[in-house]
């Protein structure tokens, strides 16, 4: 189980959520409590236990390779915040 202090800055960055200083402090403390609480799972011996993949396992669920109508161009773009020349516009992506 994790022993290092919870690094909210790293996690928030990874989650792409900008926090104010106040939020970082408050949420950091609350999450510290919650993570402390979930440490109790360490009490259990789970060595020979399989993780639950699905509550009701089925396998080989597929669909036939058929083309179905999707959305019209207008329907797709109806909710888009910024469209230029039919493309969803975003700030310049630097690779």
């Amino acid at each position, binding site marked *: 189980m994790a022993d290092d202090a919870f690094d909210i800055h790293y996690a928030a960055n990874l989650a792409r959520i900008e926090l104010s200083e106040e*939020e970082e402090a408050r949420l950091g403390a609350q999450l510290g409590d*919650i993570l402390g609480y979930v440490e109790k799972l360490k009490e259990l011996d789970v060595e020979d236990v399989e993780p639950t993949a699905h509550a009701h396992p089925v396998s080989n669920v597929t669909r036939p390779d058929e083309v179905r109508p999707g959305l019209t161009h207008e329907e797709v773009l109806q909710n888009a915040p910024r469209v230029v020349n039919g493309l*969803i516009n975003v700030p310049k992506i630097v690779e």
Partner: protein
Amino acid sequence: MPPLLLGLFLTFDILTMLNQLTISELTTKLRAGEASSREATQACLDRIAAVDDKVNAFISYDGEDALAQADAADAALKEGADGASKPLLGVPIAVKDVLAVKGQPLSCGSKILGDFISPYDATVIRQLKEAGAVVFGRLNMDEFAMGSSTENSAFGVTKTPWDLDRVAGGSSGGSGAAVAADEVIATLGTDTGGSIRQPASFCGCVGIKPTYGRISRYGLVAFASSLDQIGPMTKDVRDAATLLEILCGHDKLDSTSIPEPSPSLSANLNGDIKGMRIGLPKEYFIEGLDPQVKASVEAAVKQLVELGAEIVEISLPHTDYAIATYYIVANAEASANLARFDGVRYGARVQPAHDDPNPVFNLYARTRGQGFGAEVKRRVIMGTYVLSSGYYDAYYLRAQKVRTLIRQDFLKAFEQVDAIVSPTSPVLPFKVGEKADDPLQMYLADIFTISCNLAGICGVSLPCGFSGNPKLPIGLQLLGKPLGEETILRIAHAYEQATDWRSQKPQI
């Protein structure tokens, strides 16, 4: 009173009561021509106008569209539409704002979706429409279904109609309150850790979470993919059975949907539970259990015995670990499910300035930082953390293993008993703001409902009494084995018919 006036009075009386009917009662009247769908729908709209300012069950609704649907239903009724193929014809039903309805706004109780209009119908919505229902309204909820009080909504808290200082529960608070306040005939809610059952308990109505995979999740905005299920919230058990029959069944658009046909439920509500073995988990009688809740549930258990059931003490030894397990698994899955809310393709984008040194990163970080509420941020960040490099084994993998142990507890118990009984919530509906500052305390109150989702089994909550002053509803929970909806509904129905909690209505 002159006959004309008497006649008018009686007619007026009938009209104002249409919104108070159950699905069964209303469909009977509609098919008998004693009332129209428009009248029923109008009665609901009038009731909403009268009380929703106080209750805040609805984020929004389109009254005109509802009436147009009602008119269409009335036309079909006149043509003698077949009750078997359209069992909900003309019945107004509202849905939690987490289910996609084509042409309607979809907010999930959040600001981040902005003015998003769904371009498609969820499968359950299609099913309701095919059954002839008048589907309308966007019901309030905790943001992205994360919460147990509806205080986490960006659109204000929903109150329980029994006491407007207290919460309706969550996350399907709007769905519970709307039914309990007779604003609508029935609603759909969703349940990931108790979000149908707990508000059903707090509002004094019936709410059922079916076995995982019974009802299609296509069109349900995902919180925790392996735990989420849609379910009806209704005024009585029969209505819940009716709706469940319509919504259950395999859906080829949902790979996790169980390939089982819809169960026959309403036909089996025969009141006969003699010989049924009902388990009482010894771990559930905890310290924090409110004494009035305890008393009501004990009385309910006695009633079940009187009806012929046998009570068996059982053990669910891993109960203590359920909340920790849940908050790791659910938050991990949620962190990925909510990643799509980034303002790129839809939603309330926060566009960085032209000279921003890191514009793409900041587009994401600010859209989400400003668009998500505090609880969502907590859970997404926690979920991100428990999956991150170095922590996966210690948190997520371990939690999924403990989940197996919890499921095994239930499967073992169900070898001995047909159903399990417990309180739905250890506490009475609490005051708005009472638990807001301590998220962990809020989580701990999920203790009775949460294991059901982890184990993938079914569970129903129904009214079993009231507290003293103030008069607040108390809910009884019945848990059933996987695919065991028929059993728990039969027990619930038998109990409901032997008692009369339903006849008591909130005074708003």
